[in-house]
């Protein structure tokens, strides 16, 4: 049923796709993390109006399929004059998507710091910004790593959605091999294994970090 020779013979092509997947993931993750931190902080401390706007953004993204969002972002960006080449466009659409998830990661981390910590900071005479900078955020960063690693693994997987619109990522190349060799299953299994090789260590790392935090 599975022809290993097909996977083996086409390994360079699969790996080329995996490389696209990986660079796309890393680039998107960087932008998503920066944007997510920003959105998260604005949502928590930006006041009523900004808080509401960022909340709508976060909830709208989290409630809509990533595939649909990517289609919207990918095809709408050129209409507002942002005519990016394929790779940057994919990065932007994934980052727009993941920034919402990562904003929630930051919010959850800040909220998981016991209330007593900020009360202790206030009781020393610190203002909100000082308490945030010197007491809350430093504690947040350790807690934020495990879920961020998880988002990274999720992002590796979600880059496969980009195959639906444009990019020659791992899944796309697997399908191309399937078309050429008239054996659909084998390259997909090969791709699945390569995805696992990429995601499993990240997820394991996330779990280890989580144990350490506890």
């Amino acid at each position: 049923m599975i022809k290993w020779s097909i996977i083996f013979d086409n390994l360079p092509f699969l790996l080329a796709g995996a490389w696209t997947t990986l660079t796309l993931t890393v680039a998107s993750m960087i932008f998503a993390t920066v944007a997510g931190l920003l959105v998260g902080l604005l949502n928590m401390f930006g006041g009523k109006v900004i808080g509401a706007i960022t909340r709508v953004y976060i909830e709208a993204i989290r409630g809509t399929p990533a595939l649909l969002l990517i289609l919207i972002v990918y095809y709408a960006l050129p209409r507002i004059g942002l005519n990016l080449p394929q790779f940057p466009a994919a990065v932007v659409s994934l980052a727009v998507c993941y920034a919402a998830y990562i904003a929630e990661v930051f919010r959850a981390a800040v909220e998981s710091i016991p209330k007593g910590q900020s009360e202790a900071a206030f009781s020393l005479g610190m203002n909100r910004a000082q308490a945030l900078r010197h007491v809350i955020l430093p504690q947040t960063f350790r807690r934020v790593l495990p879920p961020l690693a998880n988002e990274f693994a999720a992002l590796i997987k979600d880059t496969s959605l980009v195959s639906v619109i444009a990019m020659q990522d791992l899944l796309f190349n697997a399908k191309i091999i399937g078309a050429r060799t008239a054996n659909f299953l084998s390259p997909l299994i090969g791709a699945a294994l390569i995805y696992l090789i990429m995601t499993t260590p990240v997820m394991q790392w996330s779990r280890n970090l989580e144990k350490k935090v506890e």
Partner: protein
Amino acid sequence: MLVVDDLHKSFGSLEVIKGVSFDMDFKERLVLMGPSGSGKSTLVRCINWIEPPSAGRITFDGKLVEPGKCDIRRLREDIGMVFQQFNVFPHLTALQNVALGPIVVKKTARKAAEVEAMELLAKVGLSHRADHKPGQMSGGEQQRVAIARALAMHPKLMLFDEPTSSIDVELIHEVLDVMVRLADEGMTMIVVTHEMGFAKEVADRVIFMDQGLIIESGSPSEVFEHPQQERTLSFLSKVLLA
């Protein structure tokens, strides 16, 4: 130095402090007692505005505390607070915990702040722990770091909210010792505690609260030996029996 006048505090529709008035002088030591839920913590937290009161007036050091008019943050610099759960900063060493307030709030130079922090740690018997993080310390040690941290701001008043009730029974004395020494040095303090020994040794006045009201107040011997209220008597007998 502190005047609390008809203080009220509600959480939603639940009134927790129902009109509390008392005043205390410089260098006075006040012990607050009362059953669980009587509002001791809430009262103490209203004094430094960590819990903003719903009604009533607080005058501290001659000035009426009014948000907007006076600076609540300045007030808090003058009032140190020690919590039941320690609330030391887990990401910082003992030394950094103590030095952080002066550095961030008073803008003291790091060097100077750390020199003083070392002195304070010595005072609470923790010189050897300066570079340890709270995770490696016992409850008694963490609470002493918390006391040193509060002292670093040179407060005029110290609030203690059940400082020993999260600490292993044989480590409680470490913390009480430090508090007794502070009292001996003339620190003004309000202490919520059920440690009778401490109250008898240190308190100028014991205030007994029940259901959001002060129901009894006097010297330790008055309150402990001749309680006027049924409720005080019953509470004391239970605590002493235990």
